[in-house]
């Protein structure tokens, strides 16, 4: 096994001779995306005309399907198949694995007569056109025996227990420490269910080429999708060729497959023609996963100087009746502030609600909404500046496991952010600043998000024209994967970006874990660097071993790569000339990377500070973000443009969590109230004024060979709390029930006599 110390050696990415690393390079697939010519799964052209599948969702939250009447649907024009649990082709039972090493088990669609959440796909119609399929789907007549659904999270907190395999984490003695603290805070926050609302809904198209199922789907992780589909179809894993070339947003909601993929593949097999299936926007809300609601109790005890003596964040949350997903809203707090007495943990209750699952910055996005507001409240109690309070509680090492930080520039993020934002102009007393009809206030919050590295592979090829092709079973969910892989390849092989081709999103390519947990760039990129290094070595040996090369007989270790030229001192030739002559069919090598054995001896996180200025209309309780700045430290930045876009996108999500997003459960039906993008509000352009993200210079050589870390989720950590704190500073009202909508804020404004 390797050690992180091996990563300190210079490599082409860290040396960055041509300066491509970090450059704000335009998106590799940008022109395709903005001209609508990057085909999403549903738009992929199949070899023959496709049929169209439409799913039907259950209209109860719990119970069973008592009777099925599909006669009218079957008789509807153009209909090719109508399936329910009674006549769907048989599939292996849920979770079954014919191949022990499959990364996902069978996931049968239309599994049985049981209904365990509202909107669960319970019937499926295939027709010659989408319109005929939709029309027929409305004629499927299901009779239910409904049970009274258990869907009221707020009323179920007492029924919540420890998530499977987890225990509370206590350091010192929290209760005693809290009781002995001179200054105390004990408040509870609530956050609602959030839906991912990707621009591209989940969708799949499948057809069969002999015994091989070819499927294009919208997925963040290729291998589990391939394996899961193979297990569900009861075929060999190699008999599924799964592709996901272009994706319109994932946010964690496409970390798993759904019944669209299974049903497309099953129907394509049964009908012997390509079949495509997409969730409608309405179906997305229930039929895929969501970020569950939370209740979070924060207790802080400090001395008069603002040093935390006792600290606790306890989270209650919910998941599907059969699930175990836990929104770990308390975890991040274990690494954030110093305090001798600490208690964190989670309580989980299973409900008859759709499946909970990960959403951008799972845990942090929810948890910072409480803790980072609690810190603001504590600072006010103590008469301290909120920035200062955080700096006073900066831990020298990880406060729970004692490990050294690989890199931790939180304090610098806060200080530089404060300076750049003009934080000194903030008045500590709320409600003091007016601009026309607006009460104006500033708030800040810290950001933290873990950093991960997973095993991955990659291949690099070079052809006789000197073009480098990167191949990896990686995905680009809109984050910039194509682009940063091209940059790494170009910098490693010393070729211009125009000489790099990137092929990803295919189960037949060398596997990578995909996009999620902000591990994508580090994981996929490290494998790309390894493959690039192997190609350098192969080319150097090719040249120095080829009598016709000017480099013949020289030491391959001394070869340099720049501007498409391979050289040793003044002896050189172009890559294209070398390959055309010595390996006219081209050269392909693989590389892989894996976590170092000693990585976990360091606490490795990404950090940031958010600073926000809002206006509150005291007449209506409406809030607008006037300015927002995030300063982040997340290792070396591969691409200043795509990274900044990730960070500001996360910040906007934080604004949405503070002000707009949330879906309510109808307790009678177990359904979500907002079922389209007119009802489910996300932040829009007009809600946000100036928005900027700055990335500090940093290299984290304990993270991976490139010294980079992830940025995809960091921006969404803490951003909402900065907004909420700014609202308090503007008008003196604390709303601890997110989102902070005008009705809630207005009640507080009226209570204050405003």
């Amino acid at each position, binding site marked *: 096994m390797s050690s992180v110390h091996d990563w300190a050696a210079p490599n082409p990415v860290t040396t960055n001779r041509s300066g491509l690393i970090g450059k704000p390079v335009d998106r590799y697939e940008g022109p395709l995306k903005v001209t609508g010519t990057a085909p999403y799964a549903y738009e992929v052209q199949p070899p023959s005309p496709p049929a169209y599948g439409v799913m039907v969702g259950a209209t109860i939250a719990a119970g069973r399907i008592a009777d099925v009447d599909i006669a009218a649907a079957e008789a509807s024009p153009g209909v090719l198949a109508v399936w329910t649990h009674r006549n769907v082709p048989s599939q292996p039972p849920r979770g079954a694995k014919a191949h022990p090493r499959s990364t996902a088990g069978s996931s049968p669609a239309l599994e049985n007569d049981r209904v365990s959440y509202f909107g669960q796909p319970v019937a499926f119609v295939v027709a010659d056109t989408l319109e005929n399929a939709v029309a027929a789907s409305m004629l499927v007549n299901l009779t239910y025996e409904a049970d009274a659904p258990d869907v009221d999270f707020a009323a179920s907190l007492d029924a919540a227990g420890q998530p499977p395999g987890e225990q509370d984490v206590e350091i010192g003695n929290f209760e005693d420490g809290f009781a002995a603290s001179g200054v105390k805070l004990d408040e509870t926050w609530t956050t609602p269910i959030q839906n991912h609302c990707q621009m591209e809904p989940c969708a799949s198209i499948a057809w069969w080429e002999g015994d091989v199922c070819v499927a294009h789907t919208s997925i963040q992780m290729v291998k589990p999708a391939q394996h899961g589909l193979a297990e569900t179809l009861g075929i060999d894993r190699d008999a599924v060729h799964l592709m996901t070339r272009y994706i319109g947003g994932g946010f964690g909601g496409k970390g798993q497959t759904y019944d669209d993929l299974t049903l497309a593949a099953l129907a394509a097999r049964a009908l012997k023609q390509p079949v495509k299936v997409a969730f409608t926007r309405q179906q997305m809300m229930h039929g895929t996963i969501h970020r569950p609601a939370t209740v979070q109790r924060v207790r802080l005890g400090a001395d008069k100087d603002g040093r935390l003596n006792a600290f606790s964040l306890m989270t209650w949350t919910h998941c599907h009746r059969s699930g175990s997903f836990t929104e770990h809203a308390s975890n991040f707090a274990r690494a954030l502030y110093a305090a001798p007495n600490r208690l964190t943990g989670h309580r989980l209750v299973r409900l008859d609600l759709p499946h909970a699952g990960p959403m951008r910055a799972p845990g942090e996005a929810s948890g910072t909404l409480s803790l980072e507001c609690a810190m603001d409240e504590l600072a006010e109690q103590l008469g301290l500046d909120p920035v200062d309070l955080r700096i006073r509680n900066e831990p020298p090492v990880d406060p729970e496991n004692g490990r050294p930080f690989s890199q931790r520039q939180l304090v610098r993020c806060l200080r530089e952010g404060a300076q750049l934002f003009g934080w000194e102009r903030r008045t500590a007393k709320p409600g003091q600043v007016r601009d026309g009809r607006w009460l104006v206030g500033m708030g800040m919050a810290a950001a933290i998000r873990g950093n991960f590295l997973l095993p991955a592979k990659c291949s690099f090829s070079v052809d006789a024209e000197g073009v480098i092709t990167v191949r990896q079973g990686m995905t680009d969910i809109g984050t910039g994967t194509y682009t940063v892989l091209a940059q790494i390849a170009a910098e490693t092989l010393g070729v211009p970006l125009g000489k790099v081709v990137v092929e990803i999103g295919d189960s037949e390519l060398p596997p990578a874990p995909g996009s999620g947990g902000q591990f994508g760039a580090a994981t996929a990129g490290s494998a790309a660097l390894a493959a690039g290094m192997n190609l350098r070595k192969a080319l150097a040996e090719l040249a120095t071993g080829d009598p016709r090369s000017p480099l013949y007989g020289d030491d391959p270790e001394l070869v340099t790569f720049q501007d498409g030229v391979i050289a040793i001192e003044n002896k050189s030739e172009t890559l294209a000339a070398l390959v055309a002559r010595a390996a006219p069919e081209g050269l392909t090598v693989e590389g892989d990377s894996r976590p170092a054995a000693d990585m976990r001896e360091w606490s490795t996180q990404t950090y940031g500070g958010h600073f926000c200025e809002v206006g509150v209309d005291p*007449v209506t309780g409406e809030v607008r973000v006037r300015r927002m700045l995030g300063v982040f430290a997340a290792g070396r930045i591969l691409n200043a443009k795509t990274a900044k876009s990730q960070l500001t996108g996360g910040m906007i999500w934080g604004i949405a969590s503070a002000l707009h997003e949330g879906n309510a459960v109808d307790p009678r039906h177990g359904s979500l*109230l907002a079922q389209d993008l007119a009802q489910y509000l996300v932040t*829009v352009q007009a809600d946000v004024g100036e928005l900027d993200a700055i990335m500090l210079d940093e290299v984290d050589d304990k993270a991976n060979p490139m010294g980079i870390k992830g940025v995809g989720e960091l921006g969404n950590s803490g951003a909402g709390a900065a907004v909420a704190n700014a609202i308090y500073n503007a008008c003196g009202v604390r709303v601890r029930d997110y989102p902070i909508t005008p009705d809630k804020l207005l009640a507080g404004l009226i209570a204050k006599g405003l």
Partner: protein
Amino acid sequence: MKAFTYERASDARGAVEAVVNTPGARFIAGGTNLLDLMKLEIEQPQHLVDVSRLPIAGIEDTDEGGLRIGAMATNTRVASDSRVRARYRVLSQAIVSGASGQLRNKATTGGNLLQRTRCPYFYDTSKPCNKRRPGDGCAAIAGHIRESAILGASTACIAVHPSDMAVALVALDAEVETLSPAGHARRFPLMELHRLPGDTPHLETHLIPGELITAVVLPPPPPGGQQYRKARDRASYATAHASVAIAGGRIALGGLAHKPWRAVDAEAALADGASPAEAMARELKDAALRDENAFKVPLATRLVAATIAEAQAQAGAGRDA
């Protein structure tokens, strides 16, 4: 979506005849609301008569000193018309506070008036709704929604009318011109276009089947300032919790009822010297409140006071200029 047939009308009379003579026929103009409803099968027309190309999209001065806005004038066109902006700014403000730029480019004046509620239970076809199926019941009444009416609601329906434009038009005392199935033109106050839900919430206007809105007529602008304010969850593309249109001494309220609500009692109280808060207390004295929508009372009251002040300041600024 149910299969349907389609024709494009070339004149208003022909359009009306086509709708009257074809079972299950509906007019379609911009389609920004109707098509969404058809996809969900909330609306199931068998035949669509496209009126969007009818030559009734102009905006003309009237002899009385007002404006006649053709029913097919798009929301964008009306809001950006220089005469509207100069003399009926409340209308321009109201239109641009609704929907999104893309929708306003397609949506028409007539269609905007006839758009249907955004009540989430109206759109969730798995739940009962008296608008969708008369006599079905109302899932919203025992639901937990803020988007419900506090004025004029019934035991059959608590939905609100979503239009911003219509609120401004009511404040401006606009009239509607229509062509009836018998081929007769008629003209009546826009205030009388929409109905309260009563026990027939599926009937939303007093138009008779097949009657086509051909124009909205604005009288000369009233003396005094004009102002539109809308309170909502986000700054764009969200319906109003409450909205207020002020045009001279007239007040219209949005987001509170099944129709744009002319605040006649508040206007009278203000004319008698009452404060805006007192006037709104009188206007809202019969408001039927629920836990979730009770905030609309202080919201509308505060919004009216602020909007009156802004309209007066605007009128003052106009005189100074």
